[in-house]
């Protein structure tokens, strides 16, 4: 996994820690809806399923997954740029 580039600033942060499938995916989709194209969403999650779901969703939905990082405290950060 790539380390988060500290230069990238997220426009919105979605904290989905503790939620399991499908809630992280639903909330990600909802949050991306009201962002402008090019804006960046940061998602924090603990569900291992999200590691497959979020990249797949980004690839198929035309959004760009900029970074994925496993944080030492036991959760994962995703940076998604809306397409």
């Amino acid at each position, binding site marked *: 996994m790539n380390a988060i580039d500290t230069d990238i600033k997220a426009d919105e942060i979605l904290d989905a820690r503790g939620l399991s*499938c499908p809630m992280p995916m639903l909330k990600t989709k909802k949050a991306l809806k009201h962002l402008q194209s090019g804006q960046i969403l940061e998602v924090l999650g603990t569900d291992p399923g999200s590691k497959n779901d979020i990249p797949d969703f980004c690839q198929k939905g035309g959004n760009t997954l900029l970074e994925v990082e496993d944080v030492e*405290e036991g959760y994962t950060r995703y940076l998604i740029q809306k397409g």
Partner: protein
Amino acid sequence: MNNTLIQGITEEIKQGYQGAFARKWPAWVGGILIAVLALMIFMWSVPWGIAAGYKNWGDWTLYLAGIQSARPDLVPWMHNLSVSNIGIIAGALASALLSRQFAIRRAPGLEYAKGAVGGILMGAGAALAMGCNVGGFYTAAGIFSMGGYAMMLGLGAGAYIGLRYLLWEMEHLPQKTVSRMNTDTGAVRVRDWKKLQPVFGMFIMIAGIAAFYTYSAFDLTKIGGLLFFGLLIGIVMHRSRFCFVRAFREPFMTGDSDMVKAVAVSLMLFGFGAAVIKWNWIQPPEMGVYHPFWIGSLAGGLIFGIGMLLAGGCASSTLWRAAEGHTKLVVALFSFAAANPLTHALINYTGLKTALGSGYFMPEILSWQIALPVFGAVMIAWVLLAGWNERTEKFVIF
């Protein structure tokens, strides 16, 4: 020379481990392996199901709590589908540990409530349909019981209603998240634990295989075999994240059709294999066809479908997700197990049983020659519809 051989083999083992427990398995690989294992279970003893195992656990819980007076016939380690469920939990737990993905995952309060209600609905739905997403849908359709198709429609409709609720909930019931910001020492503990996980995973695998030999030593090879098949199903389901809920939900949620294709391919393979087994009388043709067509299967599917959306797991994925450490799914597992025998008792008590329908064996009505292509056509139609929906998003409601 000797050194390079050992180095080479060590390298191979490392790569094999990476492939099995680090890289993700495509859903369709999971689907094919599930079909093979379901066929093995069918030839070994009975058509595969999960809800009957939950019922055994629920029967015992209710008996020990003094709610049910009759002592269940079989103890959980002697009941065939209870044993295969235990195998699935053990296999998924071993797989999660070997993948370094096991963690006790706490959830916000509302999620536990959804797990409990979802479990109750699944337990009730599985009683009405005489089977869950596996026994009532997958196995039923695959062994040519008409109830499987009615339950399939019910599950689709239930998934739609359940998703509508989740969307409503997102707008109206904001949740607090569970933030566990550990101190520095906590982070070190997490790191050490991650290193140790595969050791525990290996230990569970070895214990599972030892249990099979123990059953065999007591002349119970048939029961022990189910534990072994369950173990493999648990690993396959966990690694490929094979999920029936996803197959029914995703066409309405993101439009993604991957899991629909995986389930349909799996079911087609299982169905044609089951036809070989039944048509050739390896197992009796009428085996396992009692699924109350169509009211019980359809209504059961609908209720089960809503429940699996709330819980975030069906009968099978509740087992492997609970084993991965999701405490919400542990709650769902318990409420499923308790609600299922209670609903069965209610159905018997009210005399509703005959009204729900009876088992119809498709080849008996249509002949094998027609039943086989009808079965294949339904599966292909499902795949094509889901693929078309992925491109057009016609059914996506969000």
